[in-house]
């Protein structure tokens, strides 16, 4: 898989700025809004992985041991649903707002 962490970017590469928003328990673990610059063409899944990797509890809440999204995780890009299976081949674009959340089950 070809992708770049923002720190690995060289200045010649085109960068895009995206905002990642976590909700509910993900927010408690990872914070509210994360604005990050990534290489143009970065896919959804590696973007979320890179963003969460430094926080093991947050990462484990979203990804399983195989590095796949937990099946209940909901992903949205600019208010539109992205299927988990499509996330790995969905690139993010400049200004995208990405939402990652779990359904809450209590009642």
């Amino acid at each position: 898989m070809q992708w770049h962490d923002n720190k690995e970017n060289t200045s010649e590469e085109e960068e895009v700025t995206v905002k990642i928003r976590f909700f509910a328990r993900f927010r408690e673990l990872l914070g509210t809004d994360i604005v990050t610059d990534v290489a143009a063409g970065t896919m959804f899944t590696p973007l979320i992985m890179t963003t969460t990797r430094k926080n093991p509890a947050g990462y484990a809440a979203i990804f399983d041991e195989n590095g796949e999204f937990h099946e209940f995780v909901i992903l949205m890009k600019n208010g539109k649903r992205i299927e988990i299976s499509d996330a790995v081949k969905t690139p993010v674009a400049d200004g995208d707002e990405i939402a990652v959340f779990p359904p809450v089950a209590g009642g």
Partner: protein
Amino acid sequence: MFSYRELDRYKRQMMLFGEEGQERLKKAHIFIAGAGGLGSPVSIYLAVAGVGTITIVDMDVVDLTNLNRQILHFDRDVGKKKTASAEEKLRELNPDIKINAIDVRIEESNAVKLIGKADGIVDAMDNYPTRYLLNDVAIAKEIPLFHGGIRGFYGQATTIIPGKTPCLKCIFPKAPPKEVFPVVGVTPGIIGTIQANEVIKYLLGSGDLLTGRLFIWDGMQAHSEEICVERNPACEACSGMITKKTPARKKK
């Protein structure tokens, strides 16, 4: 027709929607699945608003650990069936309506019969398997499902009109893992009140419902937002339904 007592009881809200609106509430039958954190505010507000028939179903006994949020139940009710406690409180709140409190677990074998001819289902459950079952019945009967869910200071709500809006499975195809969830009573208070507000608007046939919109509440930030949600054409629960162009509304 209303008694003098009812005319007085509902006077302040009939200023909003008249006797005709009140009549719509009185004729309605709402099924509330759960008499817990969400079911408490939902049933209380629907009862005092004068929804004519309320069926409330729960299989649990009141536990002391419920009392931080399940405001239908009092300290003296610990050990009592939730349905008995709920029936007693709701009758006292409004003796002019019918309350059916049923002490049973909602299952595939009984859900259709339990819900009967109700005009709408309120999801006040604490687990997704039962929610999916309610979703299936709502689709089969073509009646709305008023969804709510909570955890901690967070909550979510949406109104599902089968055939028109995404169903619960379109929005949440997979259940999150089961857990003993942390919660403070104000969260189901807020979300349950939103669900009750949706039911009232739906029955009145006025206002904009939370259809195609997932309302998300973050109590810690005192911030709410909504996310557009769409039907999944491949949804295993509702994809067989034909999309309706006009919003489904309760008939007069």
